[in-house]
């Protein structure tokens, strides 16, 4: 059977499964809709959290990005997993004890202020919409390549599926579909990795495999370093970025992760504080399976790619090459007209003379890093069903995250905005109705951005992490660990943090003050402390912390009942289910 038939079968089966689960677990009350009734088993919740967190970016893009960045890819690996440690130790148990539905709930109550609540709602909506648009795009890419429907139709099909189970089932439906999606995506990620690991180094465990040697007895990493140097790149295991930038980006991603509303909200769904701790542990364990495999895939794919294409005649390349050329994600331009593919680093001045002496006229191959995971099984010539499985896995990753984000969007609107501020007299049933409406509208908007992606999606995703780190993270941490932190301190910290971050992004990412996008590259040596916009969230976050502390010490202490509330969330005893009021 061909790849396409296999893809239809496997994707069809998984979609049928998700829909069946959604029908079985639809929500009847707001509590079920927002937090799945608050009675989810912690291991199950850990699995759902893992699927929630691992998006199309983790599944489709990350290994590809790492394979192009080498050592520098560590910022994503350590940043996105290290953030979980912060989440588990500093946030999850206390927010669970606090026992409300949403992050703006916490900010609003802890800082006894609707202004703070509104600021938090706006941040939550910005972060979530940015993310969800990216997920829909991922769905579109998978559909267009493997089922050969246009990207737009792919997005519409994805929207319909998410609409069905997010709007119908709320958190309850999402939780159980996410469990199924975790199983699909991790299986789909591991099978090709194991196959390729056996193929290349004869070791079934990819995590060990990429540190082993192949038949020629040379360690794979050594071989790859060698290939890199030969083509004018830096050694794979050393990387290019400055140390301070690596530190800043890693820290920004860590704190941004811990501040992401759709991940935090998952810890409201377990029955007890001790379950929240356990659940966070299992979530990271399930995530780590993929995150430790990704760098192995990166090395396998990079080595395979270079040895398959470098200095090979274009006419004799395998079929996958032309398949991906059709999507435009792979481009070959025979600059020196010799019919061979020269793939090398033509931006390295030290290598220019070597290239010239070989008669090379510039790099001839442009590879979109997003295709590495999807093309990997084809490059390694794995059976068709494995390729189809990867397509289903990519869809599972994108859909599960999209659903989690849509839930944050709908609760932010129905609960934090309507119920808490505009229409406090709503009944539970009305609130549920509005939550569903908000989810439906959210799906529509997300789909629109999926079909018409703004050119700055990637830039805004980085902005979202910086925003979460520079706004939510200090406000929540101080809210738990500093009893004297008050409304004025928190609000001024959040506002200054966000503004500073936004300013830096506008200046150095969009180049608006210096003549637009084209000027951005030239501004690199003006970066403050040599820190890139991606890493600047760390600086903005520290500024937030400092301002919050200073302002709070010079203004009125929070009221007694708030200080009691803080003491109460530090003690696990007495946590009930998540409650509305």
């Amino acid at each position, binding site marked *: 059977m061909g790849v396409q038939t296999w893809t239809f079968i496997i994707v069809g089966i998984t979609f049928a499964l998700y829909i069946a689960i959604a029908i079985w677990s639809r929500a009847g009350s707001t509590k079920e809709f927002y937090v799945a009734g608050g009675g989810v088993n912690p291991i199950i919740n850990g699995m759902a959290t893992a699927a929630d967190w691992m998006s199309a970016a983790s599944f489709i893009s990350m290994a590809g990005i*790492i394979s192009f960045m080498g*050592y520098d*890819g*560590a910022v994503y*690996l*350590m940043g996105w*997993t*290290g953030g*979980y*440690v912060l989440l*588990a*130790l*500093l946030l999850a*148990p206390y927010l669970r004890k606090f026992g409300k539905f949403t992050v703006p709930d916490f900010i609003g109550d802890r800082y006894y202020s609707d202004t703070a609540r509104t600021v938090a709602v706006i941040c939550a909506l910005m972060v979530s919409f940015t993310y969800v648009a990216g997920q829909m795009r991922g769905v579109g890419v998978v559909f267009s390549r493997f089922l050969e429907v246009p990207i737009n139709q792919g997005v519409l099909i994805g929207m319909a599926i998410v609409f069905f189970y997010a709007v119908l089932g709320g958190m309850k439906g999402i939780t159980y579909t996410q469990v199924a999606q975790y199983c699909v995506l991790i299986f789909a990620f591991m099978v090709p990795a194991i196959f390729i690991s056996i193929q290349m180094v004869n070791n079934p465990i990819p*995590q*060990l495999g*990429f*540190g*082993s*040697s192949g038949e020629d007895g040379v*360690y*794979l*990493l*050594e071989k790859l370093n060698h290939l890199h140097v030969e083509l004018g790149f830096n050694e794979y*295991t*050393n990387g290019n970025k400055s*140390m301070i930038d*690596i*530190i800043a980006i*890693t*820290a920004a991603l860590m704190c941004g992760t811990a501040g992401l509303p759709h991940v935090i909200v998952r810890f409201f769904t377990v029955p*007890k*504080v*001790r379950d929240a*701790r*356990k659940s*966070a*542990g299992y979530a*990271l*364990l399930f995530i*780590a399976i993929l*995150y*430790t495999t990704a*760098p192995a895939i990166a090395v396998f794919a990079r080595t395979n790619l270079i040895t398959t294409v470098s200095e090979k005649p274009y006419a004799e390349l395998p079929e996958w090459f032309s398949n991906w050329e059709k999507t435009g994600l792979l481009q070959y331009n025979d600059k020196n007209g010799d019919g061979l593919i020269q793939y090398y680093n033509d931006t390295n001045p030290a290598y220019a003379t070597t290239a010239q002496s070989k008669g090379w006229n510039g790099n001839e191959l442009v590879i979109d890093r997003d295709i590495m995971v999807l093309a990997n099984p084809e490059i390694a010539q794995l059976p068709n069903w494995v390729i189809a499985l990867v397509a289903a896995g990519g869809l599972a990753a994108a859909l599960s995250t999209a659903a989690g984000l849509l839930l944050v969007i709908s609760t932010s609107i129905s609960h934090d905005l309507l119920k808490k501020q505009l229409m406090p007299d709503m009944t539970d049933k009305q609130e549920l109705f509005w939550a569903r409406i908000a989810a439906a509208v959210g799906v529509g908007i997300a789909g629109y951005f999926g079909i018409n992606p703004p050119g700055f999606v990637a830039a805004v995703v980085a902005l979202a992490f910086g925003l979460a780190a520079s706004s939510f993270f200090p406000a929540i941490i101080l809210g738990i660990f500093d009893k004297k932190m008050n409304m004025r301190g928190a609000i001024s910290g959040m506002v200054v943090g966000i503004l500073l971050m936004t300013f830096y992004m506008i200046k150095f990412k969009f180049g608006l003050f210096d003549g637009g996008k084209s000027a951005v590259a030239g501004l690199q040596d003006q970066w403050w402390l040599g820190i890139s916009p991606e890493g600047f969230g760390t600086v903005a976050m520290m500024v937030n912390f400092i301002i919050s502390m200073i302002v709070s010490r010079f203004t009125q202490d929070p009221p007694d009942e708030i200080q009691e509330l803080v*003491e109460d969330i*530090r*003690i*696990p*005893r*007495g*946590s009930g289910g998540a409650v509305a009021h």
Partner: protein
Amino acid sequence: MIPKHKAYWNKNLQYLAILLSVWFFVSFVLGILLAAPLNTIKIGGFPLGFWFAHQGSIYVFVILIFIYMRWMNRLDEEYEVDEK
């Protein structure tokens, strides 16, 4: 805050300090600051600094959360603040 709860909270902060020091050490110190010198040491085919950045820190992170879980559950019982 009654004294027992205060003692519980201080103990909690102490645990956090220990665990977060390890967290910082494996990722920022071994994986980034000392990565270059550690790369001269090879474990199998892995340069050690590279291994910590791409693999080792993640394993340690998982272990840290489970240690935290055990410590805290025991502490809850010891100070009788566990959930019934």
